[in-house]
């Protein structure tokens, strides 16, 4: 009876290119009108969106949970930071590529013992990994700068870009917009690759492994290799996102990657919608608004933002949102939109059918 299945939504590589490109262009246009503060928040959101996308791929598409992506972020950030500290003039794209490779390798190291594990074992194993990264960074002080970390100044605004800006605070405006544009473009590239990866052979195999691993094995899918690939890709995304985040922050420090960051990432992924590109975009947007959101809640409830409660409001809000989303809307904001979209599609195809019928009878 599912007659509307006769009209599948065509999703090809071309439509994915167009979709990601349009979104990137819109974001670039938005950066022109935004004030510098909002631009730097947008840049941070784009970096976090990349990490959330990697986590979303791992949890939503391959069904493996990870509390270690803040650890992978730290690995990418330190790889990029240590390189950029010694080689100031390296193009940023190269530094980020280095972070991609470093993140991917750390993912491989964690994946080899972990891919035989499921659910809670895996979550605990990755948690142990992310708990180990900070002490390691604090221990090898000569390389990582220990507690103080490494200071970076790698995102220099090119002179051709700065020429567009005049008047007061020209350099600040130029710098904020340049970093935002750069982050948006990097995020666009990463999203484009992930869009294709979702629909690749590996991506489809991964969904089968998630839904029914026995069937997947019978179909000839190599379970542990597929799960390892999922981990490596997710860690590589976390590496790039973490490196970009640190370049924006202009420092790499152990305290940037606490356990609570993994909780934030999970919250953003679940709120947006697991295993979807748009979910990761929404997660990134929520992250860029989170400081404003927390300030808003503080002013609504009359809490002094500098008090203890005000300072911890973000942790409380994110944790409560994560619990509520998981209990009542486990498919996130995207999950709330999807029924509307399919309803719209049903209505449209019914109208088209009606028109076709009328057309033939007249």
């Amino acid at each position, binding site marked *: 009876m599912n007659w509307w299945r006769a009209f599948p939504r065509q999703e090809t590589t071309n439509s994915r290119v167009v979709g990601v490109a349009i979104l990137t262009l819109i974001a670039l246009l938005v950066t022109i009108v935004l004030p510098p503060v909002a631009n730097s928040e947008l840049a941070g959101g784009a970096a976090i969106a990349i990490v959330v996308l990697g986590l979303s791929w791992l949890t939503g598409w391959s069904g493996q949970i990870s509390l270690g992506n803040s650890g992978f972020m730290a690995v990418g950030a330190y790889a990029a930071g240590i390189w950029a500290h010694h080689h100031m003039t390296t193009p940023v794209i190269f530094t980020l590529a280095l972070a991609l490779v470093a993140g991917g390798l750390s993912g491989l190291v964690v994946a080899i013992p972990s891919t035989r594990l499921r659910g809670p074992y895996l979550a*605990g194993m990755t948690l142990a990994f992310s708990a*180990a990264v900070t002490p390691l960074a604090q221990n090898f002080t000569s390389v990582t700068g220990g507690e103080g970390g490494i200071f970076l100044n790698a995102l220099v605004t090119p002179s051709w870009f700065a020429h567009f800006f005049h008047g007061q605070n020209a350099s600040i405006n130029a710098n904020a917009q340049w970093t935002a544009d750069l982050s948006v473009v990097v995020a666009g590239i990463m999203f484009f690759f992930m869009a294709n990866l979702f629909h690749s052979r590996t991506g489809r195999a991964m969904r089968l492994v998630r839904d029914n691993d026995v069937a997947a094995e019978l179909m000839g899918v190599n379970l542990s290799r597929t799960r390892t690939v999922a981990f490596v890709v997710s860690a590589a995304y976390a590496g790039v996102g973490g490196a970009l985040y640190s370049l924006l922050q202009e420092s790499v420090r152990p305290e940037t990657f606490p356990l609570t960051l993994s909780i934030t990432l999970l919250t953003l992924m679940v709120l947006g919608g697991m295993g979807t590109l748009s979910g990761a975009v929404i997660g990134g947007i929520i992250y860029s608004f989170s400081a404003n959101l927390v300030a808003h809640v503080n002013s609504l409830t009359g809490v002094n933002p500098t008090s203890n409660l005000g300072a*911890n409001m973000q942790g409380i809000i994110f944790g409560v949102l994560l619990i509520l989303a998981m209990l009542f809307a486990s498919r996130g904001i995207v999950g709330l939109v999807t029924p509307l979209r399919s309803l719209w599609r049903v209505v449209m195809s019914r109208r088209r059918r009606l028109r076709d019928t009328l057309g033939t009878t007249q």
Partner: protein
Amino acid sequence: MSVFLSSSFIHNIFGGLATGVIYSLVALSLVIIWQSTHVLNFAQGAMAMFATYIGMTEIDRGVGYWWCVIISVAVGMILGGMTERVLIRPLYGKPEINPIVVMVGFLGVLEALASAIWTSTTRNITEPFSQVYYQDHGHLIFLSAFVIFQMVLAIGIMLLVAALFRFTKLGLQLRASALAPEVSRLLGIRVGRMLTIGWMLSAGVGAIAAVIVASGNFGLFPTNMDGIFVAGFIAAAIGGLESPMGAVAGGLLIGLAEQFILAYWSPNVAPLGGIIILVVALMVRPQGLFTKRMSRRV
């Protein structure tokens, strides 16, 4: 004998076992929950921390130490039971990721709330026993009254839990509803109530671990159970999450490993000891060192 007792090797053994019993307690509490509801409670450490804060801040009002311990454990048990009822019960039958995510969220809420209410500065609780090492003819013996108290309390709790599960009617009901919930329900056991009791027991054991941690050198602060939870989880995982004995043994093993890394390498990398053991154990026996069941549920 006294020279032997004061060697640094023996010091490390005692130190490792003292830390290890705490890990064993946390691991045991995780195993109790895992056995009854097949949920790995990522908020176990945070729940215990929160209960300890509520109990131990009563000291400021002049309540005696032991009353505070009892309050902490009682609050922990209530918190555990309520968590099962409110947060976990709606999720039975859902994908196994869901309860993990919910408990991770709960962990975040509890830690943020604790630092909002009691600030994140470390609070030192006057320990009930001296931490000063005993001496024998001028040689230090690396045992203090506090270390003995810590070990005796932890081992006593473990024996109590073992006795409860083995010799009481409640223990039999708990084991039955964990093993075969459908059959137990037919036989008249109130399985839902048993799950809540399992969570309460587990949270109580966790609260005792947190009380010991808070009374020692480590002190009480909102994230003080994070590392201990990770070590406890690793201990439980080494044992296969199903075996209480395995969890206890795993905890002691990790305590010893961390102590020796701390003594002979660097205090910063001590948390790595547990991870190395976990990786090796998982490579050798992915189902856990102490489990009998060889196949997994599909």
